[in-house]
């Protein structure tokens, strides 16, 4: 019996558990693939015949940690005879096992066997010699067909065209087995026997998506021939995680379906999350999520890489998080947790948290220029040296625009970031990081809706008073940091140490209320105008330490545990003045304070596989926060001559603890789809906190943290590689909530609140080149009781069950893209891609029984790429909707002759239809 030449390639890929810090999780992707030690050729079945072109059998096997083969499944059948021959051969193979984090691991790979053409002799009743027997559906020889080419023994068969074997699939239950992806190089037979050879088309170039992909040269022996084959590690393997249903990994592919103008805009893809644009680049986005009005970040913790973005104690809003320094071009994915279920979530993780994971997949030097509506210009450069890790890059971008309106949204910005990921040895990785940003915008202000309707001011305009035209925003950020990851002896055991320092400087000049503010001790300055100037300079330094046990035993059960701590210190100088716009003359000092805050967080959790279909993660986090406030203008008493009786100023300190458990239980997966994925039931509970605005604290006060309790239960269904569907219901309780008060430009307490709702989300790749991501969330935020009485409002009008204003009850988002090759031209494929993004905002409840109109927005992107050149057109707000990005009800007095003191609807005009064209070149 003739032996067949076996040529094989092995591909595999892994990304171990990306638990807390995606940056460090990236490092886990370094995997040494298995190498063949012994291969045995498959024997061509003597009774077997093939159709023209031969038959291919693809097997999926597990290469165990000891190098032997087990768990053979047939991915592609060639009929019983050929399947059996392939299985018999592969069972005799041995490998050097795959290595991961210094340990031998089991992986799954696919091995294709190609049986060359062997035509069945002609049917004596009608067929002729040379006719080919066409296999039936079951792979058996079937109909007689016309002969094809000569199928002599020993012919070298060309590799197949499909690259299906490279598909990435879900990991096995044990969290170790990886699936095999792309094939390796071609090989040749011995020229005498029918050759079984791998499908080598895809081996021409690495298909890796991972910067850490290794290029190992596996050696395969067959009949004394030594064939060198590239083994490409690619794709993704995820270890089993017990994560809340509210955790979403938003991939770069989904983020890029439509072009996102800023880091904040990228978050719109997260289910239930709406990003408001309060006027321009010089001011942070507002965030709405699951019934929370997170303001500028007070209820939403954000990290970019391993560096926090929120600024505690910011004068404009607690947790102020300006994301404009983040370039969408260097964000590889975003991890969003809606709720507080992971112990790594710290201060401000009330509605949830997000981590921007840096990375550039398309390596090389990418130079791009964007030109568009309202004289928008953006010039950018992303340098991502080939052969380096995905998160090694340098990027910069300059942009400017007149903005829509009458020049009242003009802005300039510049941002740059550099990141270098290198290895000292195979177990020690270091990431160095530096970034800078500067941006300035003219701000249009917030307009009264009755004035717009009366034609007193244009929808996109600004009041004509100097105090209104002088509104602007300015923000700078400089940051640097380093991350050290050391892999230890255990399977996945490692230590991560991050440290960072950053400095921010913000200045806001805003007048929301016109000419309303006055002070009894300055009667002559009534009507001077309410132009607030807020400055906030903060220097923050801190770091994180995290130990991860990797796979181990906990009470004889498989599991892992983590122990970590975070330390952070903020030094803030802040001032608020009321100013005349001319020459920036100050007519009233409102705030002049220096604040120091320290936050020490300790946390630990463990994950245990209780039984086959039940796993649990439980942990605890405790934070200690200390505040020192030097409030230079405190203790002011009206009508008491300051100089004669006392001096202004109030120094104080306060401290408090916040702690709580976090746990998730997952049952499943049941009902796997094609032996992958399946249906899981996930329930989570967690307690988190938000630190108080420092200047609200009294001396010696035990810092009254806002306490959040989140609960969520739902199901997720992962139908193999087709995508993911999640359905969940959630409830959140929050003590000591705050809402923004436009009159004072600060937040005010509204007491305890709660939210409940439900969401459905789906990511699907139903067919090649088609990608869909969508979600729909209903949430309802209500008061638990009436707000506390104050002297100004001893009988608050709000009561238990009243809706918290401004938060859309329904938020929907859908993104879809489709791309395909149009034509081959001059050695390159012209590929066209179209993407659409649809946003739905339901009616937003406003104070005083008002409701805003629902919003429908459609964005579109069309991209053409050929070789290294890309051209794309982006149209945002395709339908040209005239919509309100934000609405606020408050008292303002913009018309000096109308002495009204009643609240009115105020709106921020949403962006009109905008066109942008971008030309990019990668070299």
């Amino acid at each position, binding site marked *: 019996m003739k032996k067949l030449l076996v040529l094989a390639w092995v591909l595999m890929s892994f990304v171990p558990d990306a638990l807390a810090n995606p940056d460090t999780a990236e490092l886990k992707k370094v995997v040494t693939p298995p190498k063949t030690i012994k291969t045995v050729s498959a024997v061509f079945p003597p009774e077997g015949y093939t159709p023209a072109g031969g038959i291919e059998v693809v097997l999926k096997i597990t290469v165990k940690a000891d190098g032997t083969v087990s768990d053979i499944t047939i991915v592609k059948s060639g009929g019983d005879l050929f399947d059996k021959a392939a299985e018999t051969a592969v069972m005799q193979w041995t490998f050097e096992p795959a290595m991961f984090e210094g340990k031998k691991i089991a992986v799954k790979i696919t091995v294709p066997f190609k049986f060359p053409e062997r035509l069945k002799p002609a049917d004596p009743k009608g067929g002729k010699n040379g006719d080919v027997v066409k296999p039936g559906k079951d792979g058996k020889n079937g109909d007689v067909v016309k002969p094809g080419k000569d199928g002599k023994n020993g012919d070298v068969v060309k590799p197949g065209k499909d690259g299906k074997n490279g598909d990435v699939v879900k990991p096995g239950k044990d969290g170790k087995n990886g699936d095999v992806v792309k094939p390796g190089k071609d090989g040749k037979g011995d020229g005498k026997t029918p050759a079984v050879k791998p499908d080598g088309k895809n081996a021409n170039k690495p298909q890796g998506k991972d910067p850490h992909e290794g290029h190992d040269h596996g050696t395969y022996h067959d009949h004394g021939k030594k064939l060198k084959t590239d083994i490409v590690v690619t794709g993704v393997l995820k270890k089993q995680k017990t994560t809340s249903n509210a955790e979403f990994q938003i991939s770069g592919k989904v983020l890029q379906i439509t072009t996102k103008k800023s880091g904040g805009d990228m978050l719109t893809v997260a289910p239930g999350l709406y990003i408001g644009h309060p006027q321009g680049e010089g001011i942070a986005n507002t965030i709405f999520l699951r019934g929370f009005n997170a303001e500028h970040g007070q209820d939403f913790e954000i990290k970019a890489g391993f560096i926090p973005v929120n600024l505690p104690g910011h004068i404009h809003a607690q947790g102020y998080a300006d994301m404009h320094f983040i370039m969408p071009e260097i964000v590889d994915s975003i991890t969003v947790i809606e709720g507080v279920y992971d112990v790594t979530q710290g201060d401000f993780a009330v509605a949830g948290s997000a981590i921007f994971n840096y990375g550039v997949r398309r390596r090389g030097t990418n130079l791009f220029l964007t030109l568009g509506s309202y004289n928008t210009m953006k010039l950018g450069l992303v340098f991502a040296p080939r052969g380096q890790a995905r998160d090694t890059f340098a990027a910069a971008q300059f942009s400017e625009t007149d903005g829509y309106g009458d020049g009242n949204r003009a802005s300039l910005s510049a941002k740059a970031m550099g990141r270098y990921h290198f290895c000292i040895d195979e177990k020690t990785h270091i990431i160095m990081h530096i970034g800078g940003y500067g941006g300035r915008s003219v701000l249009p202000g917030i307009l009264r809706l009755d004035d717009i309707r009366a034609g007193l001011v244009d929808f996109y305009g600004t009041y004509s008073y100097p105090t209104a035209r002088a509104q602007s925003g300015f923000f700078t950020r400089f940051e640097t940091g380093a991350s050290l990851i050391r892999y230890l002896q255990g399977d996945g055991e490692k230590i991560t140490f991050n440290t960072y320092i950053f400095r921010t400087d913000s200045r806001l000049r805003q007048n929301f209320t016109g000419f309303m503010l006055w002070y009894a001790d300055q009667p002559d300055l009534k009507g001077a105008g309410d132009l607030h100037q807020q400055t906030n300079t903060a220097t923050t330094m801190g770091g994180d330490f995290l130990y991860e046990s990797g796979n181990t035993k906990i009470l004889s059960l498989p599991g892992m545990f983590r122990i970590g701590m975070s330390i952070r210190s903020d030094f803030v100088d802040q001032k608020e003045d009321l100013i005349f716009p001319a020459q920036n003359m100050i007519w009233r000092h409102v705030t002049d304070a220096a604040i120091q805050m320290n936050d020490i967080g300790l946390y630990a959790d463990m994950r245990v596989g209780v039984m086959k279909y039940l796993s649990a993660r439980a942990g605890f986090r405790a934070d200690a926060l200390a505040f020192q406030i030097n409030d230079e203008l405190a203790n002011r008493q009206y009508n008491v001559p300051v100089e004669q009786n006392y001096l202004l100023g109030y120094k104080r300190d306060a401290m408090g603890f916040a702690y709580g458990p976090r746990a998730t239980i997952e049952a499943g997966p049941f009902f796997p789809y094609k032996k992958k994925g399946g249906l899981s039931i996930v329930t989570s509970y967690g307690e988190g906190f938000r630190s108080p605005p420092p200047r609200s604290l009294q001396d010696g006060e035990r810092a009254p943290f806002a306490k959040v309790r989140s609960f969520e239960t739902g199901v997720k269904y992962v139908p193999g590689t087709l995508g993911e569907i999640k359905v969940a219901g959630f409830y959140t309780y929050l003590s000591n909530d705050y809402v923004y008060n436009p009159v004072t430009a600060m937040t005010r307490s509204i007491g305890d609140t709660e939210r409940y709702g439900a969401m459905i989300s789906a990511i699907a790749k139903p067919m090649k080149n088609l990608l869909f991501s969508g979600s729909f969330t209903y949430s309802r935020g209500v008061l638990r009781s009436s707000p506390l009485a104050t002297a*100004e409002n001893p009988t608050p*009008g709000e009561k238990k069950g009243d809706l918290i204003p401004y938060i859309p009850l329904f938020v929907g988002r859908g993104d879809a893209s489709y791309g395909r090759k149009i034509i081959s031209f001059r050695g390159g494929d012209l590929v066209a891609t179209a993407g659409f993004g649809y946003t739905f905002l339901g009616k937003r409840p406003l104070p005083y029984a008002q409701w805003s109109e629902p919003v429908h927005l459609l964005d579109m992107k069309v991209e053409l790429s050929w070789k290294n050149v890309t051209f794309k057109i982006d149209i945002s707000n395709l339908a040209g909707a005239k919509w309100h990005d934000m609405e606020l009800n408050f008292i303002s*007095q913009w018309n000096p002759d109308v002495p009204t003191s009643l609240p009115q609807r105020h709106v921020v005009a949403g962006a009109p239809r905008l066109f942008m064209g971008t030309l990019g070149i990668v070299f």
Partner: protein
Amino acid sequence: MRYFILLSVFLITSCDEGTTGQDFVSYPVYAVGNSQNAAFTSDDGWTVNLSSAELVIGSIKMCSHVPALFKEDSLRECGQVLGEMTTAKAFDFLSDSEIIIGTMNGITGQIHSTFYNHGWIWLTSQGESVSISDDLDSLSAIITGSATKDASEFDFELEIALKPNRKGDDLISGIGCEGNVTTAVQRLEVRSDPRQWLRKLSFDLLSSCDDDVCGVNEGTTAWNSLFYGIVQGGQLEFTWK
């Protein structure tokens, strides 16, 4: 699919209901007079019979703040404005009729204090106080009547313009006033007793005038007595119905 769509439509249309706590309200303001308040005896023994007591009412602001008399600046705090009538109209508080003098626009809630004027306001944007009513030729009040004491009798016609004395201030600031305004409120009634306006007026002094009909001149003692009589003694009473 059909049921899914129906359920979705049901949810979307039924789940976006609710209130944020307070509602906008609007209701008429009635001035209510009482002819029984025409006669009284002054402190200095004069029997006074009023024939008319016209007073301009407005603007009015209803507030959530509880005035704290020991803290002067608290009298300037309104807290949340729960009602606002920006117009002004004259009314004779000795008539037995009632008329609508304006519309109160506001929001629901518990009112604890009020700020108001008598036809003159001084906004922060204005260089001086201005009249917002032409009803009494830009005056705030015109009070006519006669006074008798022993054998002496004289007629009087008291005219006065009551102006805020500081920019941004109301004439009457932060006086107590309780009212629970709900969406069921149909009207606000305003009452005042003209006898209180003249409570501190010295009719002895007034009677010394040489004119047929005596009046008061700004800056005089009588004028001051009348001024404080109206803004302090004869404060408006508000009743929500």
